């Protein structure tokens, strides 16, 4: 099993006629994702690599029954694209776009609450259920199916973590990049809640970074609700305060949002925090040892 995406995912790609859109749509398709439609305003009626393109999400939904959308459009148009998908009745939107104005995201979040649509991202690599369905820009081959769920605020750091997990024979149930912006559609806790209902997920990896307090809140939620092993990692111990470290959300403001505070909160809540990224795989192999014996996926 998995969370948010599975064999029933019928993917629509917004921005499919762009260079990035076409490339990543193709990568998802090759991974096995069922891509049913693309949307680019004004390009309705054409096809991209065999996928029909529509002018509006409403058209695409009516014609193809898409239920998930991957948004690969530039920042000025991304918020509108997300709202279009939500308004049309898409249940899950995954937005990769980096650099969406914060005010746009605040409005999008309220808009989505009115429609009941879930957004993953923006500024994220997407979501993948290894061996089944990939909705994002992450490299497919580093993933292997298995019992560990991965949630992360980062892109390539997630790939690194997953790569090391797979290297140790630790497969993943679903890997989600929630995004590096200060305001994202789906929080750590939203993911945790979903994983808690997935019986196949029997261990978790949480990859956080400086800025905000999402990791602290997630840690407390884990303490109160989960009894499966959780490994944590926090990037940014050496980040100077007051500077945005690449991600719009990665900033230590005054005394809040430091890596140390997050690591301490995680430890206090029983999370196994790995401090050496170079040793991440072996560290997880130790924590998840029982898990691997049980499932035989090691």
């Amino acid at each position, binding site marked *: 099993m998995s969370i948010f995406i599975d064999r029933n995912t019928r993917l629509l790609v917004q921005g499919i006629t762009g260079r990035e859109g076409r490339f990543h749509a193709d990568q998802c398709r090759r991974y096995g994702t069922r891509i049913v439609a693309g949307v680019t305003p004004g390009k309705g009626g054409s096809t991209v690599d065999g996928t029909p393109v529509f002018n509006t999400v409403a058209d695409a939904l009516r014609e193809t029954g898409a239920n998930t959308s991957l948004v690969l459009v530039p920042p000025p148009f991304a918020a509108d694209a997300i709202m279009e998908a939500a308004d049309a009745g898409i249940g899950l939107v995954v937005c990769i776009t980096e650099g969406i104005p914060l005010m746009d995201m605040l409005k999008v979040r309220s808009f989505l609450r009115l429609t009941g649509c879930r957004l993953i991202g923006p500024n994220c690599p997407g979501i993948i259920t290894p061996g089944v369905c990939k909705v994002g820009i992450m490299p497919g081959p580093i993933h292997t199916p298995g019992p560990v769920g991965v949630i992360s605020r980062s892109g*390539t750091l997630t790939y690194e973590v997953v790569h090391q997990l797979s290297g140790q024979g630790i497969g993943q149930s679903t890997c989600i990049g929630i995004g590096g912006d200060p305001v994202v559609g789906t929080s750590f806790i939203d993911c945790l809640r979903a994983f808690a209902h997935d019986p196949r997920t029997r261990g978790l990896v949480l990859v956080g*970074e400086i800025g905000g307090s999402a990791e602290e809140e997630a840690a407390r939620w884990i303490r109160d609700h989960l009894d499966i092993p959780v490994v944590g990692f926090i990037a940014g111990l*050496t980040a100077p305060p007051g500077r945005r470290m690449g991600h719009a959300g990665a900033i230590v403001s005054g005394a809040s949002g430091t890596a140390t505070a997050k690591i301490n909160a995680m430890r206090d809540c029983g999370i196994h925090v790995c401090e050496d990224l170079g040793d*991440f795989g072996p560290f997880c192999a130790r924590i998840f040892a029982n898990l691997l014996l049980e499932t035989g996926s090691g």
Partner: protein
Amino acid sequence: MKLHEYQAKELLARYGLPVPEGQVADSVEAGLAAADRLGYPVAIKAQVHAGGRGRGGGVRLARNRAEAEEALAAILGMTLRTRQTGEQGCRVRRVLVEQGVEIRHEFYLSILPDRASGAMMLIGSTRGGMNIEEVAAENPELITRIRIDPLAGLQPFQVRRLAFALALSDVQERSFFDLLVNLYRAATENDLLLVEINPLAFTAADRFLLLDAKVEVDSSSLFRHRDLAGLRDDADQDPLELEARKYNLNYIRLDGNIGNMVNGAGLAMATMDMIKRAGAAPANFLDVGGGANAVMIEHGFRILLADPRVRAILINIFGGILRCDVLARGVVEAARATEVNIPVVVRMEGTNVEQGRQILAESDLDLVTAVDLGDAARKIAAIAGEL
């Protein structure tokens, strides 16, 4: 992107918000002429991108021409050191000369998008003129925070709540509604990450006045705010950071001597942390973007090498979909083009990683290949030990 106080006030005045009469000046003469025109007393305020400038001597009150001349001479050209600028400080090139006003009370007021609640946040306090973080620490009950839904916008009941919390008088309350409505419009229509009025003065003439204004614009929104984009002042910026921005590289200078170049912000932070764990110190943060390519890497090399403190370099590229043979060729060419003459450790991952490593190994350059992150850390530690 931070605005200077005078820019912020010009922006806010366009929304009908009451700011003191004032004029910006970059010389003592111009400052004096402004002061003469405004009439004494005047306030003379350094225009730098740093808080705490009052304590650093960047703000002075002048009751007459002689005091104004003295203040202008003292502030213009000074190097202001505050908690925020750190030791190197920043040079004052401009001052704002403002009409002095008689103040009855000072409030604190700010509006910002709040990451925790995903809403706009309106913050007010009766303790105006003080550092709000100190007030929050000592008297949190004196701070009122009001969550505003970004779709619904500011509602009358929210203004009322703040007005009652600030115990406004009837005469104050009458103009408070318009003040907040206009400030909220200014914040949302200009994508402000922060608009902070501290203090918001209530004057002897029974009116509100925005005595100071701190404004930060969302850089991601500048595509729709051409006017604001033109207000950027990079005079105090690190020149390497400015150079990096030209190439869309995300570079931040740090205090160490191990340069590093990584694709992706999270991995870049984690790589810096690894350098520290290896017993060395990162010289920088440098994110060349998730989909790094040869050109980005060459630009990255140039930026790293332009910093004379850098004694070794670690390149960490997790390509995934990217082809490592292409990447490796890019690294080799970039290293050659930039004439790197310090140790370079390269760790990369992605399609065709074996061919990539071979290309690095076969180059005539002194490139150290690492097979994984643990290996990279050990190799950087070894190099750092010899520096």
